[in-house]
């Protein structure tokens, strides 16, 4: 604990951005109005999933931790890591957020909410993709398409750095954790090892009590 406080004293920028454990009242999903609001939030975000979907992660954090209080910041970081470790597209994180949203109502509603959230985030982008597929030959040389592709690339770059920074701040509460993150980041870029190895080794270090939080 002392080490963690010293760490935050050394890096005041980190301390300033770390949100306090939320004390707000979690929003209940058994109210139909609340449920529709959540579904429409995810439906509306779908088309902003630039650059493969990971750009939405800060937004997911805002919704599930700050806005609706479904999860603590620690739980959010855990779910992000689980979605990264599990096989399949990492955007399935939304299903886990949906599950967390309704966990208080029991496992059945948690599953219903999980499937609902995942469908809501995928439906609009899927429909747009079908249209794109069928009309691609008309679109491909349009100046709109070219400007969109070239212009949104640098924005995606900026968002991905903001996402990386956000997760780093959420996850790393002490120098050991930060060191693990930085080593993994370098290895992700410089080696061809499967990221599962990094998670397994870091999990082992954590299990041995070397990464407190």
């Amino acid at each position, binding site marked *: 604990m002392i080490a963690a406080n010293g760490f935050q004293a050394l890096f005041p920028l980190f301390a300033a951005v770390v949100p306090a454990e939320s004390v707000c009242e979690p929003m209940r999903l058994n109210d139909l109005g609340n449920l529709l609001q959540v579904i429409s939030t995810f439906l509306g975000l779908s088309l902003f999933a630039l650059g493969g979907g990971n750009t939405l992660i800060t937004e997911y954090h805002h919704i599930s931790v700050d806005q609706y209080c479904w999860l603590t910041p620690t739980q959010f970081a855990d779910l992000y890591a689980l979605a990264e470790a599990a096989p399949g597209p990492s955007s399935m994180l939304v299903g886990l957020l949906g599950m967390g949203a309704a966990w208080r109502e029991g496992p059945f509603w948690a599953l219903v909410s999980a499937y609902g959230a995942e469908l809501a985030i995928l439906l609009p982008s899927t429909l747009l993709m079908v249209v794109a597929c069928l009309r691609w030959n008309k679109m491909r040389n349009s100046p709109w398409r070219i400007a969109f592709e070239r212009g949104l690339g640098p924005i995606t770059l900026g968002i991905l750095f903001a996402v990386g920074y956000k997760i780093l701040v959420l996850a790393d509460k002490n120098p050991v954790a930060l060191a693990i993150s930085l*080593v993994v980041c370098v290895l992700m870029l410089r080696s061809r090892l*499967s990221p599962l190895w990094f998670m397994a080794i870091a999990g082992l270090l954590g299990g041995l009590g070397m990464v407190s939080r």
Partner: protein
Amino acid sequence: MTEINPNPNLSARIVPNPTLRQLFLGMLQVAISAFGGGLSAWSQRIVVEQRHWMTNEQFLAGLTVARLFPGPNQINMAVYIGASFRGLSGALVALAGMLLVPFTLLMMVGLLYFSFHELPLLDRILAGVVAAAAGMALSMGFRILDTYWRDPMALLLATATFLAMAVAHWRLVPVVLVIGPLAMAWYWPRHPASPTPEEHS
């Protein structure tokens, strides 16, 4: 991470128009084959090399579209493949095939997590795994940085986006709606008919 193979061994034989059932099973096979990673490479191997639904050129064109439009790239690719053959129903069937097994597994993981995450040992293990996952998240930006390194305007736009989100705490949607049009105006093609260099990347 396995890269896309630009020149796989191809036979000229193209089997046209898979049925809905075949689309579902094909995407299921992709999802299960890719359990160790490399989703993109597996979908190319199965769709182009094994099942001969598409030529490699058609597949790469689809990947360009999948990366351009919003949504997870590999899910968009499944939708593109399904929609190319069977329209909307093909897209939905391909999506279901792609997600069925991994999503069901993830749901089991999620149920276990929410039931047991307060156990001290599990919490300690997760503290380590989360630190590694944060490193993976941090690497995402660096991974595409090379593409924009020689373009000062791109770096300026990326920096503005980063500062707006990480320092000024703007939400994603206003960031995209404000900086997006500025960026599109700057990169508006002077010669609209000219093909983009990254067309077949």
